[in-house]
């Protein structure tokens, strides 16, 4: 009996999480203008609109490019930052760790607003250069990459680096051929985290973006406030597509990491 109570609880929580998303997904395949309204049966209209509308297409493309580019820059910057900090004196290291923590605990809105005031108000950098937007997203994401690399550095076998030097490798070779390969899992998960953080961001974007540019977040917020039904229902299709992509990605990751573990067990 008790076990069933647990399962019922889990099902209820899952229902709370998924019913809205799934209902929206179902309605995205109709021509209804709001959830609950009567629909004239099955329709791909929203999906056609999503891809036919050039503005929407550019917006989605822009969001992805912004996320990937900023995540790549963050990853390079923070990877070298973490390696350097790891080998630095204790004072330098703890100072860097502390400053790195600021954007992590800070509210995104404060981060975004402070960058806006510095770059746009004081330094008069034009928003249209995309520089404030890019820098803002790097500030938002780089500290998380740094944090996901630190534990890998601690686990690393330090004598390998020394061995490489003894065997005649230059420090640069030792760095790129010995140290960095050991950090790859941390670097990859840091990069993925940076991408998802950037994709999900609203506040930094809204305070730093050029007025003609929109990411998914800022576009959705404007569309739900507006009265244009067509833009609104096309977003149902977008939401459904993202939902499916996320599920597939998570399942794939799970299967892949499961296989890796199995291989490891077999080789033992």
């Amino acid at each position, binding site marked *: 009996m008790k076990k069933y109570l647990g399962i019922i609880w*889990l099902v209820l929580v899952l229902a709370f999480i998924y019913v809205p998303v799934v209902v929206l997904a179902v309605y995205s395949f109709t021509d209804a203008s709001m959830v609950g309204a009567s629909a004239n049966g099955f329709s791909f209209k929203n999906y056609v609109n999503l891809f036919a509308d050039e503005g929407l297409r550019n917006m989605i493309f822009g969001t992805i490019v912004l996320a990937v580019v900023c995540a790549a820059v963050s990853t390079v910057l923070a990877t*070298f930052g973490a390696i*350097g900090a790891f080998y630095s*004196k204790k004072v330098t290291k703890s100072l860097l760790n502390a400053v790195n923590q600021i954007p992590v605990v800070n509210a995104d809105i404060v*981060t975004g607003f402070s960058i806006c005031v510095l770059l746009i108000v004081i330094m008069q950098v034009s928003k249209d250069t995309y520089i404030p937007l890019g820098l803002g997203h790097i500030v938002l994401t780089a500290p998380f990459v740094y944090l*996901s690399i630190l534990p890998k550095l601690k686990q690393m076998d330090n004598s390998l680096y020394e061995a490489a030097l003894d065997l005649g490798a230059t420090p640069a070779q030792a*760095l790129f051929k010995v140290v960095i390969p050991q950090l790859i899992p941390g670097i990859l998960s840091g990069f993925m985290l940076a991408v998802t953080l950037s994709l999900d961001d609203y506040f930094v974007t809204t305070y730093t973006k050029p007025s003609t540019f929109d990411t998914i977040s800022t576009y959705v*917020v404007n569309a739900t406030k507006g009265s244009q039904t067509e833009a609104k229902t096309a977003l149902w299709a977008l939401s459904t597509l993202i939902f499916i992509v996320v599920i597939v990605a998570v399942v794939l*990751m799970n299967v892949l990491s499961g296989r890796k573990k199995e291989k490891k067990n077999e080789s033992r």
Partner: protein
Amino acid sequence: MKLRFNRKQLCIPYAVFLILFVIFPLLVLVYHAFTNGQGKFTFSNFTAFFSSTNTLGTLLYSFAVAAVTTLVCLAIAYPTAYILARSNFKKKYALLLLFILPMWINFTLRVTALKEILTLIEGNISKYQFFNSVTGMTYDFLPFMILPLYTSLSKLDKSYLEAAADLGAGKFTTFMRVTLPLSVPGIISGVTMVFLPSMTNYVVLDMLYNSTYIMGSLIGSYFSAYDWNNGALISLVLLVIIFIVTLATNRFSEKDSGNRGTLL
């Protein structure tokens, strides 16, 4: 002689970056908070904030929304994490993923979905603003509470529970005196993950019913009015709150960074 390459120097670009774009903007915020539009030093932004019933009301209201949201999230997430961590489902990890998967779906899209459902159920959603604020925030932040709780509960050494049972503690006593105290780090990090965002994430409320009364919305409206000084002041108030919360929780929380979706 070959130029010797020093590993320590690798952190210089990142350190410079952090100084320029993390520390510097914060200093600029402090400067703006204590000056007026002409750049003269003044406390007037400060006194205006703390003497206006409008802004103080906003501060109180956001505290209320954030506190209730945090409690609701905790009340939903704790049993969920507990059942998941203690269960002997074969695919425990896959099941956990189901609960935190929304982290990776853009929050504005999820709130859109919630808005449609709430409209369907309630008709006019601006009637129950406080309830809907809390529902929206809970919907948005629940995964961020479940993950740290699950992490700390699943790390819990089962032999402690057995020891408690052997020493004669009942299930309730074991929970209150062993499980709960040992999960405090998870609770703390979950609470910080939910409390601070729900004080500032005005977009959730903005999308639900076009009008908002929390701290974040003040920054938003000063931003649209180009009033950098007052916006900076609100940011400073938020920073102080964040600083206090961080100081207060640092003693308890272990260094776990992975609460913002690092499961991948």
